[in-house]
């Protein structure tokens, strides 16, 4: 078997994402998941004679917002073209798309590759976006017995097709790109990216070459509906192309499909069978001006970039990579965290630990598990029904920082807060958890304990230089104070008493 180490894989992706809008892209009909077939249609969606498309401003604005998120150029104008082909799922037998004047030009998506271990940040890289264009989805054709059935609920749903430059060099980079893209789309409210609902689909262009050589002939694998199938396609297609070239054969430019069950790609059609779509400008939709006022208004809605936020958490707030990366993956969670830090700025790390571990764990348990386009990602949690408010969590961390309760007790108080939504202080008081930090009282207890012959051996060992021996004295003190003694203070008093 030959090594593929001297081959470089070159990958470009075309990501089709359904935009989060109320109405369809050229009709007033609403859309959503789980409706009965052909319920979300109207004369325009069905292409009845005499109906005309009207551009949905919300879909255009979501597209512009995406462009602003990736730092793209928003051109002064965009326009639509007709892509003509016959298929029963296509109500007009042409699809409205943007061939020459798309709504988004250029831009780039920052990606993060896996680090050497879970708690070490990996390499970052920018993947250029060629353009993104706004088009309409088609219906769904299914075969039943001797006939075929067609459902037009999906027809006319706004689809943003995001086309990358061939900047990706491995399946891991392709995965990282899609994760980053999904995070940016969802965090900006552009799309929900729910794979189970088919809201994100991907075409994957793969070619191989020797590093530095011109680009090789590429193949396009269509309609991949999960990150793992993109990864598997890249791996499969790279291996196949290496095998072909090393056997002295050539790569045919072709369109391929992917069978996820078999883990294999297959040929759909080669270049000779390529459609002639007879594109021409749609005469029903005049060139649309993308006003600078609209672009400026939308620019204010662009959230902080995922990785800018991550760098800020690590550099300014001093968070470890693990906590920072967990927080920034969910915009709502990150913003919740920041509100909490604002209420208690002294200990961002303490707050981050509780948010990224305890809070996220309990919220996830409440959501249950779902599968997104990224199967590896945790189920998305919502903070809207979180029983704890950011300032309340800050209050809990503050009590711990001030030594009112121990870190161990803080976990117990957190659980109670998540259950009841009460303030930390109220729970601490109600449970009588407040630590005893009364020096005079504790000094007296310390004297009583060290006077007990049962601990004489430990005292001797401590005095002999065994630091750990002092811990044996702390248990009896805690016992006498029903665990309320401030552990730091006890340590201090013990050392003083033992000289």
């Amino acid at each position, binding site marked *: 078997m030959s090594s593929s180490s001297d081959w470089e894989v070159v990958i470009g992706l075309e990501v089709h994402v359904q935009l989060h809008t109320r109405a369809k892209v050229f009709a007033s009909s609403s859309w959503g998941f789980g409706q009965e077939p052909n319920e979300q249609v109207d*004369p325009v969606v*069905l*292409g*009845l*004679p*005499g*109906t*005309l*498309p*009207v*551009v949905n401003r919300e879909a255009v604005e979501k597209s512009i917002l995406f462009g602003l998120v990736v730092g793209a150029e928003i051109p002064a104008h965009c326009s639509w073209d*007709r892509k*003509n082909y*016959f*298929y*029963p799922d296509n*109500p*007009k*037998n*042409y699809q409205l798309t943007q061939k020459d004047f798309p709504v988004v030009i250029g831009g780039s998506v920052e990606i993060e590759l896996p680090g050497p271990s879970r708690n070490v940040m990996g390499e970052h890289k920018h993947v250029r976006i060629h353009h993104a264009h706004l088009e309409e989805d088609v219906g769904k*054709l299914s075969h039943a017995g001797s006939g*075929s059935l*067609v459902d037009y609920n999906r027809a006319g749903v706004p689809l943003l097709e995001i086309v990358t430059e061939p900047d990706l060099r491995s399946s891991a980079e392709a995965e990282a790109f899609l994760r980053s893209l999904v995070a940016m789309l969802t965090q900006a409210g552009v799309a929900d990216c729910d794979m189970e609902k088919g809201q994100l689909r991907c075409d994957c262009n793969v070619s191989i070459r020797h590093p530095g050589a011109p680009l090789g002939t590429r193949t396009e694998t269509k309609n991949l509906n999960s990150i793992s199938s993109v990864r598997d396609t890249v791996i499969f297609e790279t291996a196949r192309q290496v095998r072909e070239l090393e056997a002295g054969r050539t790569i045919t430019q072709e369109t391929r499909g992917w069978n996820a069950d078999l883990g294999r790609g297959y040929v759909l059609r080669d270049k000779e069978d390529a459609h*002639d779509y*007879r*594109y*021409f400008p749609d*005469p*029903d*939709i*005049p060139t649309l001006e993308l006003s600078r006022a609209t672009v400026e208004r939308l620019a204010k809605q662009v959230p902080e970039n995922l990785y800018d936020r991550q760098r800020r958490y690590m550099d300014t707030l001093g968070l470890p990579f693990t906590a920072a990366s967990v927080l920034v993956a969910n915009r709502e969670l990150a913003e919740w965290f920041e509100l909490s830090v604002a209420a208690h700025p002294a200990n961002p790390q303490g707050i981050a630990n509780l948010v990224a571990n305890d809070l996220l764990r309990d919220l996830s348990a409440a959501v249950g598990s779902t599968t997104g386009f990224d199967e590896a990602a945790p189920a998305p949690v919502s903070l809207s029904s979180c029983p704890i408010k950011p300032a309340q969590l800050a209050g809990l961390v503050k009590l711990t920082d001030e030594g009112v309760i121990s870190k161990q007790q803080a976990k117990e108080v957190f659980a109670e807060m998540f259950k009841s939504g009460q303030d930390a202080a109220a729970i601490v008081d109600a449970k009588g958890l407040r630590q005893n930090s009364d020096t005079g009282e504790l000094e007296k207890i310390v004297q009583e304990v060290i006077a007990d012959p049962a601990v004489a051996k430990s005292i001797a060992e401590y005095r002999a230089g065994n630091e750990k021996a002092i811990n044996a004295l702390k248990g009896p003190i805690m016992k006498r104070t029903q665990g309320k003694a401030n552990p730091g203070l006890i340590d201090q008093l013990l050392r003083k008493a033992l000289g």
Partner: protein
Amino acid sequence: MAETLHTLSAAELGRRLTAGALTSRALCEALIARYDVLNEKVGAFTHLDRANVLAQADASDARRQAGQGRGPLEGIPVAIKDNIAVKGQPLTCSSKMLASLVSPYDSHVAERLRAAGAILYGRLNMDEFAMGSSTENSAVRKTFNPWDLTRIPGGSSGGSAAALAAGLVPLSLGSDTGGSIRQPASHCGVVGLKPTYGLVSRFGLVAFASSLDQIGPMARSVEDCELLLAALASADARDMTCFSSDERALTAAGEAKKLRIGIPKGFLGKGVAPEVAAAVNAAIEFYRAQGCAVSEVELPSADLAVPTYYVVATAEASSNLGRYDGVRYGHRSAQASTPVEMMTNSRSEGFGAEVKRRILLGTFVLSAGYADAYYNRALRARAKIRAEYLAALSQVDVLLTPTVPTPAFKVGEKAADPLQLYLEDIFTIPANLAGLPALSVPCGQSGHLPVGFHLVGAPLSEAKLLAAGRLFEAAHGFAHQQAAL
């Protein structure tokens, strides 16, 4: 009196209805009676729902009685070309493909007519999908010219023109992609206006060539045409090519006797029948005598109009007609074992020869490797034609030509020669390519056949065209003319 109602103008009928001298029911009953006698002969209508018409008439009379009349069209029947959607009525486009289709929605103009109190009166025959100049391409029936039943009425709005000339209805709607309102108006001796592209919403007009199509009013007088236009023209958010309310103000008519009239050089020469040239020259002399400044203008690219049109229009048509595949509505072939076969066979069976010819032509001119030589070149020619027309119309108010080079020909005479038939629209096509308003007004006869002249103006100059038309019609006997049947 009932036997003369069909000779009256919409304006006069409106006055009688307002005065209480006439009811909409009486008017509609008289017209239905005339329809029952004449439609078989003329073939203007493809459908008339008598009960529905009378119900609308009764509702109109009740509104008027209650003092809730909706304006000058209240109670007046308007017949509608069968490519304009009216809820609950057939929308066949005179095609086998849509023979069974009943529209589930109203076009914008149908809504406007209802809001104006008009009676939506019957469906008018046309060339299949508005493709043709003789109404011979209808899959439903032939329509004959009321002035000579051996001749064609023009097309594609042949039913709309013939219904007026035969006194079957006082007002009608047509659609015009390359002359489909004005050419039959000329052949049938009636008035037809193609509005500025964007003045009337296309929502509910079955598309032939979207960038050229406009719905327009047809009547037996300029005054009636104007009355109907006022009802049709309004902003509509459902058609993105329709002017918004702040874009649609018409240029003031000014004084008709002071209009500057341009005569395009060469338009009255080769190919124009002598009687047509004589009638149009007489109209020019009339305007000159009224005080209008008449001058010759150059339109050097005018020769490109017909070939440009047949590339642009067929390209758009090949795509617009893609939706007729038998999947959702319309003719579905019984001979198919797969969905794609069903679509193919449905189209082969459902479309007539001229429609197929244009779909093939349009598919060809958009094909990879040919689009630059045909479609993209035609777009450049179109821009040039538009620029020349706009330049000419910055020097003069209107351009005056014949509407059609020759009078109505015999049924079947040009059926075997589509190219000859395409030249029927040589004077009317440029207005569509340039998006300009254009009016055909009757101005004489060639033997027993009507002849019209054609006025083209700058965008939104409808009021000027209509004022010029009224000046002519007031001094001549062609208004309200009807064929003797």
